[in-house]
């Protein structure tokens, strides 16, 4: 009886340990999420200022050609400056003027240029247009720069504060949903930078990875599990090596990619194509191992039944064993892809770490990937990039959570179908 009591106590204690460790893990996770979200949520808004732009003919098209090739050389910045002068008149002196114009992001003139290119008839009219504010103004509006700090510790001085107060009183400075973040590539100016370039780079690389590693991985797994001769030294050697590959640090795969794909085959540097190739090297062992586990878990009686009916080995495998194992294979593949999405080390080595403004159009254009964009931004001291780093992490996490839940969903769904 004594024994029974101590056994029950032991069980209780063990349960407590379990709950305790889950609580620790959960609280760490919550701390992580809270810190990311609290730093990053403001990045989903951007500050814009409404300017009364006068598309002045004399500035844009003095000869009235209406020809974009001539108009595009015009001084669009002058339009912005004129509009700012109109809202906040009476600022004297070169230094002060420059400070005033710096409230507006340098992207404003490009926006106007785009508007004119879209519709050349706009020349000569007057329109109110929301343009991006400078990142310092953005930070002030979002409250990351405190107004009550002494002037010397503030990035925005008293005079600029006054001007912003004027804008606020006229209600022509407002926070909008941050479209720039999702539609632009990287930029030196935080208010003009976005994650689209990195996102496309990641998607290109992942597409290559999926296209290569899914069929190769599954074919390897099916061969090793169902067709390869058992107790064959060479097959054993291959198996041991595949298992070892799964444990190799990813940066080594990057070095391999650098040596083979870039130096030997002369593929373009920084391209998602090479990134995808390197990531598929890394993902292959994961897919092979999980697919083999899925194939192993198919009851052998199913294959026997098919063989007993006179199905050939290939028919039995592909018509009965593989379909049952497929959800497990999908799960393994998605988890491998999620791993590849979050991977940065091998991509660093093959040069996908670079300041790339343009959004990649093809798989051979230079690009970065999401985790690398996070790394690049985290390296930048400006306050505007801090919140964008967190925002990019959130986007990455959303993708990872989505992929992992898809894996769980697929597994659950097909398990139900089979049982």
């Amino acid at each position: 009886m004594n024994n029974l009591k101590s056994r029950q106590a032991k069980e209780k204690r063990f349960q407590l340990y379990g709950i305790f460790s889950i609580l620790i893990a959960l609280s760490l996770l919550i701390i992580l999420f809270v810190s990311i979200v609290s730093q990053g949520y403001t990045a989903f808004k951007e500050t814009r200022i409404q300017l009364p732009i006068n598309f002045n003919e004399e500035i844009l098209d003095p000869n009235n050609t209406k020809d974009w090739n001539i108009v595009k050389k015009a001084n669009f910045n002058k339009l912005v400056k004129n509009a700012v002068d109109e809202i906040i008149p009476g600022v004297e002196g070169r230094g002060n003027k420059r400070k005033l114009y710096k409230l507006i992001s340098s992207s404003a003139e490009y926006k106007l240029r785009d508007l004119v290119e879209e519709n050349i008839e706009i020349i000569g009219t007057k329109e109110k247009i929301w343009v991006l504010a400078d990142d310092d103004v953005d930070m002030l509006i979002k409250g990351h720069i405190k107004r009550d700090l002494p002037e010397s510790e503030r990035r925005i001085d008293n005079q600029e504060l006054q001007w912003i107060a004027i804008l606020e009183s006229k209600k022509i400075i407002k926070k909008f949903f941050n479209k720039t973040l999702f539609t632009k590539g990287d930029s030196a100016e935080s208010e003009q930078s976005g994650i689209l370039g990195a996102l496309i780079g990641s998607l290109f690389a992942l597409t290559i990875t999926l296209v290569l590693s899914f069929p190769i991985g599954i074919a390897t797994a099916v061969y090793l599990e169902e067709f390869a001769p058992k107790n064959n030294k060479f097959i054993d050697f291959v198996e041991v090596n595949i298992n070892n590959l799964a444990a190799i640090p990813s940066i080594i795969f990057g070095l391999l990619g650098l040596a083979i794909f870039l130096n030997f085959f002369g593929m373009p540097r920084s391209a998602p194509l090479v990134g995808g190739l390197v990531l598929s090297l890394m993902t292959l062992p994961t897919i092979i191992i999980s697919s083999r586990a899925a194939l192993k878990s198919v009851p052998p009686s199913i294959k026997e039944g098919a063989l007993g009916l006179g199905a050939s080995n290939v028919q039995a495998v592909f018509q009965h064993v593989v379909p049952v194992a497929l959800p497990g294979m999908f799960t393994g593949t998605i988890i491998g892809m999620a791993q590849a999405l979050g991977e940065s080390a091998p991509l660093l080595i093959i040069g996908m770490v670079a300041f790339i403004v343009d959004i990649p159009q093809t798989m051979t254009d230079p690009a970065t990937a999401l985790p690398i964009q996070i790394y690049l931004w985290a390296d930048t001291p400006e306050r505007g990039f801090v919140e964008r780093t967190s925002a990019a992490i959130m986007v990455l996490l959303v993708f990872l959570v989505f992929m992992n839940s898809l894996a769980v969903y697929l597994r659950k769904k097909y398990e139900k179908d089979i049982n």
Partner: protein
Amino acid sequence: MYNENLITEENIEMINENFIEDEQLKIDISETVGDIHVEDPRIIAKNVNVFYGEKIAINNVSIDIGKNEVLAMIGPSGCGKSTFLRCLNRMNDTIESCKVQGEIYLDNKNILEKKTDVVPLRARVGMVFQKPNPFPKSIYDNVAYGPKIHGLAKNKTELDEIVFNSLERAGLLAEVKDRLNSPGTSLSGGQQQRLCIARTIAVSPEVILMDEPCSALDPIATAKVEQLIYELKENFTIVIVTHAMQQAARVSQRTAYFHLGNLVEVGATEKIFTTPQHKLTESYITGRFG
């Protein structure tokens, strides 16, 4: 539960242990007692030996299997009756370490020859397994699979006919005809086993091998399957491995008693169960071991 289908090391060890035991008993089991020959045989097995690696699992077994008869194979666990059964449609090929020697003639052709194509062989010699193993597909697709891969139906109508006919003959049609699209695995154990029988007869085999087809079923389902076997013998030659001696007595015309890889005695079922000639057969059927 002990699974006859899985030939494991443990299993083989058991055979060897039994050998030692028997040497102590000093009973000769190397010669088969009774009538191994029948008139008008369908299958003739001559001097069949089966090895798992170095170990011998079937020792020099010769037996005829007649047309349209039910042959029951009985014997204690590990005696090799399932192994012998699986030789008859070369299912032992799937076990890497298994080597089969000797000759098995099906219509004067030695099926153990290397060049024999197992695909048409298995279509002629169908098999029902110990545990019901329907495919994780619909009831219809389970039965239609065999005819499809062997190209037995030219069109959908013919296929439908084969499927319905097979289900009817397996005594399952009335129970499943309004849910042919539900998965085969949703049926009860007994229905699953009859589905597997329907699946087997759908390819019109000449011989059906049954490896303890009722061992996973309850008595009512067992009775149904036995009734089915009784009816099927009109058209098929059936070889059934069973642990239940009453079952052997009920369904078979001839019975073969295996012991430690040897075919000890074979003869008409009535004779085996009433006046067995061999001492071991007698001990087994009277329940002294097994």
